[in-house]
């Protein structure tokens, strides 16, 4: 488990952790944009690189949540988790506007598969 920083430990730790390690690193970019909006070129190659890194990083979060999933999700087999993700991805890559449908189908694969496995057991 991620340990609280001893000096700041207490019932308020989750709130403080949220402010320090989630709110600040996110909000800082919105603030900087307000401060420097007139001097930043939104199409510069550096920002294009940042976008590519952020995309890979987010895809990495998805992969980690599927490979080493939290709680109840870990009870379902890996093949089913990957299958649900693959179904979603296939639909969106086929038609970019079908995000909602893709999410529903991915969920249906996962929940339907999980239900069938629990019936078979």
């Amino acid at each position: 488990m991620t340990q609280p920083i001893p000096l700041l430990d207490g019932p308020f730790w989750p709130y403080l952790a949220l402010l320090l390690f989630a709110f600040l690193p996110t909000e800082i970019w919105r603030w900087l944009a307000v401060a420097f909006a007139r001097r930043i070129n939104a199409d510069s190659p550096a920002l294009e690189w940042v976008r590519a890194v952020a995309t890979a990083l987010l895809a990495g979060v998805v992969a980690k949540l599927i490979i080493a999933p939290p709680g109840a999700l870990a009870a379902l087999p890996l093949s089913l988790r990957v299958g649900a993700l693959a179904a979603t991805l296939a639909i969106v890559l086929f038609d970019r506007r079908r995000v909602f449908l893709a999410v529903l189908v991915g969920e249906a694969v996962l929940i339907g598969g999980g239900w069938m496995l629990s019936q078979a057991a």
Partner: protein
Amino acid sequence: MSVSADWSWQRTTLAGIRDALSLPAWVVGFGLVGVGSLARDVGYPVDVAVLSTMLVWAGPSQVIFFASIAAGAAWSAIALAIGFASLRFLPMTVAILPLLRRPGQGIAMQLLLAHYVAVTAWTEGLRRLPGIAPHQRVAYFLGFANACMMVSAAGTYAGYYLVGALPLPLAAGLLCLTPIFFLASIAAGIRHRGDLIAMGLGLALAPIFDRLMGSGFDLIVSGLIGGSIAFAVRLIGARRV
């Protein structure tokens, strides 16, 4: 719906709320249900989950936060990963502010407007704001964005309690909502081959570096490597054309 230039700010705000509730707010709210479930899973209180939606207002940051705590990552690694994942807000905010800026607008108002910049309010804002008279845009945008945020806060709250109350396949479905929704939004935002490569490499490299390194920095390293390769491929491809 279209906004008439002579509408009062109240009516314009309502139009923004109505447009959000016509679909976008439900899509974001649906996506943040899983964040509530994740927060419950790491044992954080429900108000931290709901506050994360209202303060952080960025699904990816919230998921990295709760999922990394579950994985036992170092705090410095969590903050760094969230910082990198949120860097996209800099160009996004820079792009939308000119549409919302008014003469005499204070810095506090601009910071407030910038806070609502996240994928949905941003894409919808860029699409809808140019068709609205400049003096009505702030009222419309705040109505739209706040409606999205309220629905999402309710979704996060619901996700927190639902995950423990549902039978196994459904609870697993709630927890899987986050990765599924994320991958769908990443894939929907792909504009060229570079984005596709970045997504593919991110999916492939993260589990590998997770084995090799652990401790949370694996996410940043795989993002940096995968993103840089995708960027290089895109640069070379652009030069050839």
